[in-house]
């Protein structure tokens, strides 16, 4: 072969034909996978966030497929790519029939585009679904009073973790009020111990402080308004007060001097806490398993947990919780097997599924999970967590999940600026009010 072959007329024609054939094949292949939603032997595709817990969902799928005519195909998407992959898929003909999500703002664009099945009628008429889950958890995943998701994983409330040994050495009790908290801050500072570990390069860890402060100061209604699309509600005096309280904590040295260089993701903040160089850590419930993996001695002996303290003059119920209530399955409105999909979702309320979650170290959000918790790998922690959520008058979904991405992303940037001292609490409020 050589240039001669290619330059001959027939050669070029043959070459062009081959190219066209290849292109055709590619298009056909694209069509083939595009119709995967329905035509291919009655299967439904379920996208799930790929991490350690997938094995629990896989087991549920295998069980379901034994009896069902319509088979579920579970696609585990690696965590870091999940959001983008789902977004791309939902905009294409290859959309999944059922998919994992965080409720709230994470599904708002899909709801707005009419892509999700409203599950409210099913929750109303079906006992299994209606009574199956903790109401605050179902509520937290709803949008405009409509249910779009069935809870399918463990709960992840944010709570205050503390080092029991350090508190005992300094004759301190875990803080219940803001005064307790301030006493703890000054005591630890005098001992050259950072009061709170904080990974300041990850804005979502800073977000947790504002979520709890706003809830304790102004109650959950303030953020509820914001979540429902009213950006002017950022102008509520409680938001400013929460930002000022944050600023005060920073100025008081509650997070130490170099928290802006500390990362959560690379283990910097959890290590500070585990080594006793920081006394407390406001974090999601996964902190327990993180520490159990990285510093098992500390987790078993000295790791304590408590609710976020009250703030003087605040109107929020001290029982309120923020964090990720759980993850949800939602159903694509374009699915050809809606009934089968909903049948599959019902299995999430089953005792067997809850048991599998518990065995994996998760705390299920089903209504009758409490009797299962004794068999959990860490019963004490599991029961505290379940009670906290069960008794919570309100469970506010993490703001970055509750708001849609176009608002959540700039909000996280503004929070990072507030913590880095790049904006004042007043500027912070103004910037958030301007979010469109």
């Amino acid at each position, binding site marked *: 072969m050589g240039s001669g072959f290619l330059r001959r007329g027939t050669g070029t024609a043959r070459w062009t034909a081959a190219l066209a054939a290849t292109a055709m094949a590619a298009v056909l292949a694209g069509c083939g996978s595009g119709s995967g939603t329905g035509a291919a032997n009655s299967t439904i595709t379920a996208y799930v966030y790929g991490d350690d817990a997938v094995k629990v969902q896989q087991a549920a799928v295998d069980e379901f497929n034994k009896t069902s005519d319509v088979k579920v195909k579970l696609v585990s998407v690696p965590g870091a790519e999940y959001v983008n992959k789902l977004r791309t898929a939902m905009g294409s003909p290859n959309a999944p029939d059922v998919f994992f999500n965080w409720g709230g703002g994470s599904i708002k664009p899909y709801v707005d585009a009419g892509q999700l099945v409203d599950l409210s009628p099913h929750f109303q008429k079906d006992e299994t679904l209606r009574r199956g889950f903790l109401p605050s958890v179902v509520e937290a995943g709803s949008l405009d009073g409509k249910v779009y998701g069935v809870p399918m994983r463990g709960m992840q409330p944010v709570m205050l973790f503390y080092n029991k040994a350090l508190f005992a050495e300094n004759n301190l009790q875990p803080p219940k009020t803001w005064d307790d908290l301030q006493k703890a801050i000054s005591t630890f500072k005098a001992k050259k111990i950072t009061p709170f570990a904080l990974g300041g390069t*990850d804005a979502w860890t800073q977000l947790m402080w504002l979520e709890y402060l706003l809830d304790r100061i102004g109650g959950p209604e303030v953020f509820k308004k914001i979540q429902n699309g009213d950006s002017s509600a950022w102008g509520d005096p409680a938001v400013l007060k929460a930002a000022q309280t944050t600023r005060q904590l920073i100025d008081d040295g509650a997070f130490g001097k170099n928290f802006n260089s500390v990362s959560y993701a690379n283990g910097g903040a959890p290590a500070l806490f585990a080594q006793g160089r920081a006394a407390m850590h406001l974090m999601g419930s996964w902190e327990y398993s993180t520490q159990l993996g990285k510093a098992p001695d500390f987790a078993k002996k000295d790791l304590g947990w408590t609710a976020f303290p009250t703030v003087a003059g605040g109107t929020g119920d001290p029982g309120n919780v923020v964090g990720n209530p759980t993850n949800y399955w939602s159903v694509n409105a374009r699915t050809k097997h809606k009934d089968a999909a909903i049948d599959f979702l019902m299995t999430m309320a089953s005792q067997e599924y809850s048991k599998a979650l518990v065995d994996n170290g998760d705390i299920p959000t089903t209504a009758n999970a409490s009797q299962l918790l004794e068999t959990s790998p860490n019963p004490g922690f599991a029961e505290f967590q379940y009670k906290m959520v069960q008794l919570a008058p309100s469970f506010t979904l993490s703001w970055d999940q509750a708001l849609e991405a176009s608002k959540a992303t700039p909000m996280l940037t503004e929070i990072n600026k507030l913590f880095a001292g790049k904006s004042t609490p007043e500027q912070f409020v103004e910037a958030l009010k301007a979010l469109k």
Partner: protein
Amino acid sequence: MTEASTPLEKQRSSAAAATKRGRRTAAGQGFGRPSVTWALPGILFFGLFAIVPMALAVYLSFCSWDGLTSPTPVGLDNWTRLFKDPEFRQAGWLSLLLTVISWAFQTPIALMLGVWAAGRQRNRAVLSAIFFVPLLLSTTAIAVLFHSLLDPNFGVIKEIGPWFGIDPNILGSSTGALLTVAFVGGWQFMPFHTLIYQGGTRQIPQVLYQAASIDGAGPVRQFFSITLPQLRNTITTSSVLMIVGSLTYFDTVLIMTKGGPGTDTTIVPYLMYRTGFQSYDLGYASAIATALVVVATALSLLMVKFSGFGSMRSTREGM
């Protein structure tokens, strides 16, 4: 960086390949230059994966698109927003600053190292091979590594920083974070530029040095009067790659600073990523991307024009 350098490299290597082929055919088979079909795979590839996406980005920059529903044309909205957006202005300024710092940091060191490594001594060959190692590592791995080294509580910066009067809170300070990003990029890409300078220096005919020695010029005089002028085109090549690379720098920021503290390391590519793939405002992100392509291309063309590289004026005039 790699993205930016490939078309240029491709161009150069294909040019080299073409001359070689030309010579062979002229001597042997009596054919002329190969027909355009030879370039077809390259043109198709480049068209499909560079021109088409770029054209789509330009189109999207006149639309509002969330990635789910169909794009809706919004005219010049994204562009007027771009010129008014203080965040974009800050990002542009930071990108420019990063580019200048990176160039000023990398060029002198890479130049000197390259000239030194051009010597044929065995120890220089061995050391050059070692210097080359950072380029073989993935940018992500390097960023993760440096991020851990710079942890103010557990990283080496805590021990070493105070010796040099550096506050370990380096990623938390605006200047420190930007300088760190420039440093890490320089650390990774300097070997590449060293290699370019090494190759360039080896092309310089020995007679020039021999003549200069006879005239009594020492190594310093030789460097400034022969090596440097002879390397003019090499400096342009390296600088264009460096500048385009710095303008499109991204991974290190994503991993080490996430654009922070606040927005003080949010350079243009990171702003584009945040707008496009975190806020899903793909129309505006496309406008940012298009602006970046225009500026980077304009800068490269300007540099090529004013350095005389474009006219391929020989550096060996009079020889």
